[in-house]
């Protein structure tokens, strides 16, 4: 059983949602990346979404754009990101790692080389924001053949045909984008989102993670009542950006993620 499937099975039994913080690899510093990943896990993250920096992150708001720019300015490359995952895996065998980024850097490395290196490093899932299921058939298969789940996104605008397509191609879980917008936005209508999440869980037969616009423990708790996983990105990235030292970043991340972890652990699931 894959780490992701194992996690969702275990949490199903525990009756709670997973907390998945997002951080950009290489930000706020190169040396902080692996210690931060360990800190997130220790603070109660059930899985970690690690951003692969790209020069033109079209779906991201200002916080993650700037984190990406800073990381690239520090010389972050895709192979370095995979190296950090490998380093993390030396002492953490259980926390799933999901890489999130855009197609072009993966293509530049070569999709097969990337899939092999990611599998060897211990990556569990890959989200490529600009790779739709229609265009991504080949890539999805190459990842799955190496034991990595291709995670597709669904949005409030996705109709039944698209849900069916993602159902047939995705594995691991499906990422539901809570709003019409970019990362870091704050205008989701949570009643509507949670209704949609209920429908999607039934239609997909896969766990549903919800992200975009979730910035605090109260919202985490609300979403955790319905979703299988709750992703918090920009709010953490913004706090890390303010940190002057690696140590401060670790403290800030720990405090923030502990509060969110508490929220998922004290929220009872509405539906099983």
């Amino acid at each position, binding site marked *: 059983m894959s780490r992701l499937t194992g996690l969702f099975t275990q949490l199903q039994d525990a009756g709670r949602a997973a907390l998945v913080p997002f951080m950009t690899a290489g930000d706020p510093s190169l040396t902080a990346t692996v210690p931060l990943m360990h800190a997130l896990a220790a603070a109660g993250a059930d899985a970690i979404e690690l951003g692969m920096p790209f020069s*033109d992150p079209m779906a991201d708001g200002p916080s993650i754009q700037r984190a990406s720019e800073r990381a690239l300015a520090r010389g972050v490359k895709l192979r370095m990101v995979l190296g950090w995952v490998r380093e993390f895996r030396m002492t953490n065998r259980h926390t799933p790692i999901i890489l999130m980024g855009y197609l072009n*850097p993966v*293509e530049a490395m070569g999709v097969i080389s990337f899939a092999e290196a990611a599998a060897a490093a211990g990556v569990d899932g890959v989200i490529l924001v600009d790779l739709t299921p229609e265009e991504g058939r080949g890539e999805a298969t190459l990842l799955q053949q190496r034991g990595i789940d291709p995670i597709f996104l669904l949005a409030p605008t996705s109709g039944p045909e698209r849900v069916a397509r993602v159902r047939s191609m995705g594995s691991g879980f499906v990422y539901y984008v809570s709003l019409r917008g*970019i990362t870091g936005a704050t205008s989701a209508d949570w009643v509507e989102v949670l209704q949609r999440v209920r429908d999607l869980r039934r239609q997909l037969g896969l766990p549903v993670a919800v992200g975009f616009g979730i910035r605090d423990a109260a919202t985490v708790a609300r979403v955790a009542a319905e979703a299988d996983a709750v992703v918090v990105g920009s709010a953490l990235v913004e706090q890390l950006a303010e940190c002057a030292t690696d140590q401060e970043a670790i403290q800030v991340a720990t405090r923030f993620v502990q509060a969110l972890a508490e929220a998922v652990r004290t929220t009872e699931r509405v539906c099983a």
Partner: protein
Amino acid sequence: MGGYSMPDASGHFGPYGGRFVAETLVTALEALERAYHEAQQDPGFRAELHSELRQFVGRPNPLCHAERLSRELGGAQIYLKREDLNHTGAHKINNAVGQALLARRMGKKRVIAETGAGQHGVATATVATRYGLKCLVYMGEEDIRRQSSNVYRMRLLGAEVVAVGGGTRTLKDAMNEAMRDWVTHVDSTFYVIGTVAGPHPYPTMVREFHRVIGDETRAQCLELTGRLPDCLIACVGGGSNAMGLFYPFIADPAVRLIGVEAGGLGLSTGRHAAPLTTGRPGVLHGNRTYLMEDEDGQILPTHSISAGLDYPGVGPEHAYLKDTGRAEYVVATDAEALTAFHRLCRTEGIIPALETAHALAHAIRLAPAMRSDQTIVVNLSGRGDKDIHTVASLEGIHL
């Protein structure tokens, strides 16, 4: 090349094109594709578009024999397709009219656009006002600095111009920001993309709205010279004016198609905007095409004297025409474009846009080696009023 029928049903030109976007936009693109196909089939829409191109844009514009320039060069006869005479001063308005009419037909109240040199922004602001749509234009801070008169023009026309400070602060970043806006306001907003790039159906739709350039050229050339031109030359940034001119000639193998990319300070300096000449295929802004990128797949900063060519990608159909050999792509440097700019001013009494000057530079190189009974058509894609400050300051003159 007879029976040319690109793209395929899913918007691919061979391996290029396609639809690489965030999930939120897929449904909007599907709706746009349907609306566009319905409009194309609707005689009422076609009549309205035709009427607007005549009444408001001023089409057809002439194909003008550049007699003095041709004589000086002593070779092929150069003809200029006068897109600079369109309302707003460039070819961009052909597409802006088409997309704005489509936006209105789809019931959208708000249009957004990205712009580099500002010509597409001005064209979009113009038609938005004419059709009663709210208009917002994204423009890189660097481009706002070098194209300030177009910024003011857009504001006069009632558009809001938003400065984009991220990335390289040029056209590609304006396009990123416009995509972010569209994702956020997808239900109310129509994104008027200004070139033959972006996710399907944009490359096809924009080509179709610009093919009037090539259709008119074909008829005018037959009328003036009794035969088809030997060679078509157009500048290529995203490639919309080139695609509009080339497309009706693709199935005529005797007509050479030449696109001219921005050679900037010279290819060896790395400071240019010539993805077809030096780049490799990748994915950016919703389509697969040739890109200027580093070995890690990060998009490289570009340089061109002309803001409208300062873009690291190119329309996917150009990528396809390059690979199949149907079209040739060459470069002209900033210096060559400037020389050509001055030469046209002095020989023909026409101030060309700096973008257009790249196409002229290649015509000037090519014509002397051709016979005097051969013809070259250069797409005079825009007028140069917007560039006079740039040119003057290079000569140490402050206007």
